[in-house]
């Protein structure tokens, strides 16, 4: 069971949260000119690293706010929590996808 440090409420049990998948996916601009492959990439293709994964979570049964979280998909260790719209912390530069 994960102990997730909600940036608004502090550490809470995983059962209060829902995982929203990969973070930092930007809706592409110029959608009238996108190819089918570009649409497929935006809609369906996802990072699925064996290592550090940047993902979105929502404190569903708490403050009901979304935030970003960096977590290892191998050890489940939570490495950082940061707010929506913020870039990943500098300490994680180059770490994404690496084994942890």
């Amino acid at each position, binding site marked *: *069971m*994960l102990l997730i440090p909600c940036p608004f409420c502090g550490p809470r049990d*995983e*059962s209060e949260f*829902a*995982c929203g*998948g990969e973070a930092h996916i930007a809706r592409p601009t110029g959608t009238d000119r996108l190819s*089918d*492959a570009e*649409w*497929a*990439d935006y*809609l*369906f*293709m*996802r990072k*699925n*690293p*064996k290592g550090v*994964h940047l*993902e979105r979570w929502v404190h569903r049964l708490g403050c009901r706010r979304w935030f970003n979280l960096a*977590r290892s*998909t*191998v*050890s*489940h260790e939570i490495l950082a929590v940061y707010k929506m719209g913020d870039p990943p912390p500098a300490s994680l530069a180059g770490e994404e996808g690496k084994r942890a």
Partner: protein
Amino acid sequence: MPAKTRYSIFSLVRNAISYHENWEEAWRSPEPRPEYDVVIVGGGGHGLATAYYLAKEHGITNVAVLEKGWIGGGNTGRNTTIVRSNYLWDESAHLYEHALKLWEGLSQDLNFNVMFSQRGVLNLAHSPHEMRGLARRVYAIQLNGIDSELLNLEQLKAYCPLLNYSPHARYPIYGAALQRRGGTARHDAVAWGYARGADARGVDIIQNCEVTGFQISNGKVNGVETTRGTIRAGKVGVVAAGHSSVLADLAGFRLPIQSHPLQAAVSEPVKPILDTVVMSGAVHVYVSQSDKGELVLGAGIDSYNSYAQRGSPKVVEDMFGALIELFPIFSRLKILRTWGGIVDVCPDDSPIIGKTPVEGLYFNCGWGTGGFKATPGSGWVFAHTIANDRPHPLNEHFALERFSGGHIIDEHGAAGVAH
């Protein structure tokens, strides 16, 4: 290749006389050769079935199956062993039905008892709306010529008396869909039987051999890098389940796949009490009784991505809650063990079987939570795809291109809960 001794009552008696000390090994463990015609990455049921049908149906025997761990140690040995073909859409129905037909003759074909038991598979409805949804699926399945029937409450009570039929249950039972030809099989035996059959036809099964990279030049695959050296091959088939994305990354393209833990459990063994497979989407559990007497039950996936082969206790707790909701009589059963496997989930809950942007490289992945039932059919169509460099009509709709072409095969209803 020395012919294998046939397994039979006579070989059993003969070996009993010598205290079972002289059984020959079921498959060899050769050193990898520097080159093969085809390399299969992943020694689970699907990969071994692919190698078996490459040799049997297409005469391609210069094949290696590379397994990073041991045969039957991944998802093949971790699933809940349910086999059925009651899928909604034509594409899936035909693919899974082809697999089910192969299951029906598999023990004889392999000369290995896979303990395929057609004890019937129930999908419960807990509301009039769910009953209508099931009716739609049952009729669609019948139109595809596949056995499927709708049971009303009285028929269901006669078929499976053990369920909690109280109208005061939190999720009262309204009826069910039943596929009588569905059932269970011995999962380890499927891997062992295919391994033995492939080995007898000349396939090299190489365990403890992890693929760490692909040799690709001019958009064409020439071989694989492994922990036991470089192995050249003109064609490479990847059947790596939870690690499909990792291998696609190495080959330089993206997949629409997310890897999640999927957890299951077995109880202590008890005397025969449940003679069918029961699944419920609303309370989210699926349960059958193994031949050893253990209840085998499975949960839904954990919501987060993981490669750890373990999940969170809350998912297991929910699974037990659902079991007790359906069968209050099981509330005193002790649980022997729980475990997890890593499943590769596609956005439409349908697999990807076919060619990739790299020539000579084929992927069979994305089976998500329900790949075991498809093992023979998956290997059969994948072998055809590799041998002919084009998909069989049964799997042409399951190409990676469907995500850009828009022909999504949405099987959340048939695959989302019931595995």
